[in-house]
């Protein structure tokens, strides 16, 4: 099947800084894809190159099979981008902005769809307000709406929930999930890893302009973490020798033990009881994307040293 986005051997330099190095990435049609990484990893640069806002020094990018440089009109018709910066045109109202944006994509009289996105993004009350009069969250909604005026098959959202309240986040994700279910490919960058974990099927992690992990969410969490674990605070703070082989760490009075399955908890409890060790605190730990992220970034740092 035709990939929604195909990035081949893309390099980008700003002077002596290598912002992106040999990026290869294929995002399939219909995916909900997360592009993650710390600040300055190159996420926005990569998105800018896909959107044609930046020009790569080498390599090629296609959106729905169209090269973003040589076939830019088709590539851009297939792509909707929500930029990270909260930008707006202070001369116009929300509705004017959306109708003008539709026009740029060659769509005349887009009132029905514009009204629908206004409603879906809860902007109805503000539809005829000037952009200047809108709060940050409202401006963010308009940015999302602007990216969707031409119903693009591929949507890229660059940190759409940065500085946005809980209610809007919910509204926004419900809407984006619906779009994904309707067949739109969605690419997302965010610092809220929980969001990415709940929403996305596949992840690419970027660090210092390189992709350091690219896998399905499930595989990544499975491979990159030590599985489930239990954290205990004991009195006395001394782990019975029978449990030593399960120990992951023992730090600051907290003992972390690896567990393959929940039946093992019973074994741990019995052993502790028989050695007269009392449990003061107990937490079950399930690995999540944040662990993967922290592990990967830490390993990356070690490699760099």
């Amino acid at each position, binding site marked *: 099947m035709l990939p929604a986005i195909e990035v081949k051997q893309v390099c980008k330099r700003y002077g002596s800084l290598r912002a992106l190095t040999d990026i290869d990435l294929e995002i399939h049609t219909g995916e909900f894809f997360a592009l993650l990484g710390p600040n300055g990893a190159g996420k926005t640069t990569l998105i*800018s190159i896909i*959107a*044609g*806002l*930046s*020009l790569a020094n080498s390599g090629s990018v296609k959106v729905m099979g169209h090269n973003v440089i040589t076939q*830019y*009109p*088709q590539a*851009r*018709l297939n*792509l909707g*981008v929500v*930029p990270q*910066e909260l*930008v*707006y*045109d*202070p*001369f*116009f109202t929300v509705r*004017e902005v959306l109708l*003008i*944006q*539709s*026009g*740029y*994509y*060659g*769509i*005349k009289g887009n009132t029905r769809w514009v009204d629908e996105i206004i409603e879906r993004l809860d902007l109805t009350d503000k539809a005829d307000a000037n952009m200047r009069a809108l709060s940050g969250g409202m401006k963010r909604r308009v940015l999302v709406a*602007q990216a969707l005026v031409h119903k693009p098959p591929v949507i890229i959202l660059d940190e759409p929930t940065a500085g946005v309240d809980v209610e809007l986040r919910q509204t926004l994700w419900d809407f984006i999930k619906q779009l994904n279910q309707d067949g739109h490919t969605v690419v997302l960058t965010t610092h809220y890893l929980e969001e990415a974990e709940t929403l996305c099927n596949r992840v690419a992690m970027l660090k210092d302009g390189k992709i350091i992990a690219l896998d399905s969410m499930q595989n990544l969490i499975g491979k990159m973490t030590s599985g489930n674990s239990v954290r205990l605070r004991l009195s006395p703070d001394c782990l019975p020798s029978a449990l030593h082989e399960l120990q992951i760490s023992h730090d600051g009075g907290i003992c972390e033990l690896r567990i393959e399955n929940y039946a093992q908890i019973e074994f741990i409890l019995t052993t502790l009881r028989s050695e007269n060790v009392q449990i003061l605190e107990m937490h079950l730990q399930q690995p999540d994307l944040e662990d993967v992220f922290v592990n990967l970034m830490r390993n990356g740092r070690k490699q760099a040293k």
Partner: protein
Amino acid sequence: MTGFLTLLYKELLRFWKVGFQTIMAPMVSTLLYLLIFFHVLEAHVEVYPDVAYTIFLIPGLVMMAVIQNAFANSSSSIIQSKISGNIVFILLSPLSYHAIFLAYILAAIARGLLVGLGVYLVTLLFFDIPLQLPGWALLFVILGSAILGALGLIAGIWADKFDQLAAFQNFIIMPLTFLSGVFYTLHSLPTGWQYASHLNPFFYMIDGFRYGFFGVSDISPYISLAIVALCLIAISMLAIRMLKSGYKLRH
């Protein structure tokens, strides 16, 4: 075509919504020039036989207003969009660079013509101004505002900050305008300055425009037309090249 028309509409709406500042204000300042020169110089200067100085001055001032506002329109639109970041909405769209170029230039022409027409109509209330060859006047006013619209586009793309744009305006556009014969004829200048004026493309715009009013000019209107048209082609090519390469727009 819809994309181009939309951008044109947006550019027209942009200045129309703040018409007090973009149309009325420059009209008032141009009319103030006229009032002052009329009061001070009317009795002292005669440039063409049988043409009073104020009457001679009016086409020059109209053209000056056209030039300044055409430049201001495209340059300020681009730099405001660049600095506020909303230029991204144009850059993300499938609009071709030709469409972007044409939309900005036509909006600049429209604002230049509106201000120029406004000044002209007000002066008609007080003075009897001949308009012998309106076709020539219209041709030069359109070409002149197109050139300045394209220059504004270039300056707006090139400038990273408002003060760089102001420098472009104050050190290039203003001197070329003031030294182009808005306030005098070439023949009243010393020979050296006459030669220097021939190097100023703005001189041909104003001289050609004035020809449309009085049927007389410092040099042949055909030569002026050729030079102004060549200037427009050269400056347009540069502006289109900048848009195509993404210079300072696509990093």
